[in-house]
């Protein structure tokens, strides 16, 4: 094990996969000479050259589509978006090309591609740089969505995503890049997609979440513990494939669930998870499923308003108390 940042764990995953497979290349804005807008690709240009680490023009639609075409022809591109907020320009190629190609060609053209970059809010970046973009992608059959919360998960899941034969939207977090944690150094450390991780074990309430919100959930669980409440914190790690068994197991144990997500509530990930829980574990629920999400507004700039808009540990604690009827 080595202590490293989330950023360096992603870098290690890219480096190892590029060493392992010459068909893997990285393309995006500022990924090469600038070492990456968030330095995730630091040093990769020197290691692999400008054929495999490629600075693109600011043309999200264009280079996303280029990646899909390269994947159709047999390569395994990793396409970096400086943030998924900029990928709205590219989403036609992700949904209409990448996610449907396999199906509409009757299996002739799998698209092994990873679209990666940060999603969600950082600090005071306001409306157009703060959207949590998971639901746009997870909605579409043919597209997998992965949301690592820790350095170890970042490494193991990125390696799995690169080796996967389907399009994967791999969603990181600006505020996670400096987060440090233990990471296995094994260059074959691959975490299979679709396996949730119980980040904390409890028996009273299930806090189910993904991505950056895992840390909010952990803070909430620590606060609840002071009140004698033991929470399960289940990190989905990938939203598609979805580890339904792990969700149901947790709910069957605690009989109460709170879903925490950074994005908006309406037709959000939590809505889908709550639906599955009521459908498949209805008799195990002792309270309605509650959700803690971003306020249903575009992200405001002012610190005062931003704090009100984002999910917080306090709101998670409140929701847990509510499902516990406390």
């Amino acid at each position, binding site marked *: 094990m080595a202590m490293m940042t989330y950023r360096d764990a992603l870098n290690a995953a890219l480096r190892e996969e590029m060493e392992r497979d010459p068909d893997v*290349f990285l393309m995006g804005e500022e990924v090469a000479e600038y070492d990456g807008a968030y330095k995730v690709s630091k040093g990769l240009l020197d290691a692999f050259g400008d*054929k495999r680490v490629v600075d*693109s*023009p600011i*043309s999200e*639609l*264009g*280079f*996303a*589509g*280029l*990646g*899909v*075409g*390269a*994947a*159709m*022809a*047999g*390569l395994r*591109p990793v396409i970096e978006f400086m943030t998924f907020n900029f990928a709205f320009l590219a989403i*036609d*190629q992700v949904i*209409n*090309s990448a996610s449907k*190609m*396999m*199906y*509409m*060609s*009757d*299996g*002739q*053209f*799998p*698209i*092994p591609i990873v679209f990666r970059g940060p999603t969600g809010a950082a600090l005071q970046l306001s409306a157009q740089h703060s959207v949590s973009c998971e639901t746009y992608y997870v909605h579409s*059959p*043919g597209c*997998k969505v992965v949301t690592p919360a820790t350095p170890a998960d970042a490494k193991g899941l990125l390696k799995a995503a690169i080796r*996967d*034969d*389907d399009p994967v939207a791999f969603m990181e977090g600006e505020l996670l890049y400096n987060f440090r944690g233990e990471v296995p150094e094994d260059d074959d450390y691959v975490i*299979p*997609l*679709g*396996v*949730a991780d119980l980040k904390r074990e409890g028996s009273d309430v299930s806090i189910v979440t993904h991505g950056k919100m895992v840390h909010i959930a952990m803070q909430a669980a620590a606060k609840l513990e002071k009140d004698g409440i033991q929470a399960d914190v289940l990190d989905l790690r*990938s939203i*598609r*494939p*979805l*580890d*339904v068994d792990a969700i149901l197991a947790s709910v069957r144990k605690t009989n109460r669930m709170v879903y925490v997500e950074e994005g908006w509530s309406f037709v959000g990930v939590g809505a*889908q998870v709550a639906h*599955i829980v009521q*459908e498949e574990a209805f008799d195990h629920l002792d309270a309605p499923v509650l959700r803690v999400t971003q306020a249903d507004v575009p992200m405001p700039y002012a610190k005062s308003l931003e704090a009100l808009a984002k999910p917080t540990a306090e709101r998670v604690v409140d929701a847990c108390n509510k499902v516990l009827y406390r």
Partner: protein
Amino acid sequence: MAQTRTRTRGQEAASAGDPFERHGVTPERALELLREMLLFRRFEEKAEEAYAIGKIGGFCHLHIGQEGAAVGSILPLRQDDYVISAYREHTQALAKGVKPDAVMAELYGRATGASGGKGGSMHIFDKSARFMGGHGIVGGQVPLATGIAWKIKYRGEDSVVVCFMGDAAVNQGGFHEALNMAAIWELPAIYVVENNEYGMGTAFRRVSLTDMVQKASPYGIPATSVDGQDVLATYAHFRDLAATVREGGGPRFVDLRTYRFRGHSMSDPVSGTYRAKEEVEHRTKDDDPIVHLRDKLMAGDHLDQAGLEAVDAEVRSVVNAAADFADQSPAPGPEALYRHVWAHLNPNGRLCLDGRGESPWR
């Protein structure tokens, strides 16, 4: 009425020497081109007929009138070259080597179709023929072509990719992004606008102040214009262009001028508010690529009426056989519904979340 090209190819042949020699196409090869064009005409007429009686559904965009563009641009290519196109692509698929049976069965929505009946008229794919689809979003295939060209260069191969689009596609942002990247990375791609003068019902001159041939100039991509109704000129043009690009000459842009004899799709009128009936009649009568080549072949004594009729009978039998094949093929069964959504079935977690319980991956 729109400006039209009125000179007849018969006169041109008489006045400018032997057209086969001039374009470096032997009369034997020209006869093959004629056969392909006739096949495509008959194929599309059969599709038109099948659509009218409900055997083909959805949108169906016919290529009638544009056969010279398809034959002249694709037949000079090698088997390992790639072709990618938009949704008026039936005959381009045939030209690249997709079997008529497979294309027709796809139009009919049958399991034996090129895309297993899942794509339909707009999404014909054949990996073995390197026919990369059939794409339904205007201009969506242009960045994909750039990616295919990227792979060719990445792997150090010497094939080329030919990317077709309609004239309306050049106003999409993705077109400009894709051409810029092809230019800066010197990729082996030929971007071809099949310029039939109308994007659905909007004349190109109404949506662009600049001429088609200028569209690639901001990116430093050499551009040419060729008359797609003259299959010999088109064939020679693409033969030479493919050689240049194959040798590392970087991308090229072609304004392939042609004319659509039918409506935008089977659901659309042939003429009306956007183009005059007289214009269509005039172009159909005087600018038919098949008639032009037939006249040249006959003028040079390479073809007579009996020979023409024999070719026509032969391609009609191919088309009829394709229609029979499609008709007799089974529709995809329910087991196909969930097949090929995913290439990689992760053993853990649910990929399919409709709760219907029929999918093989839960």
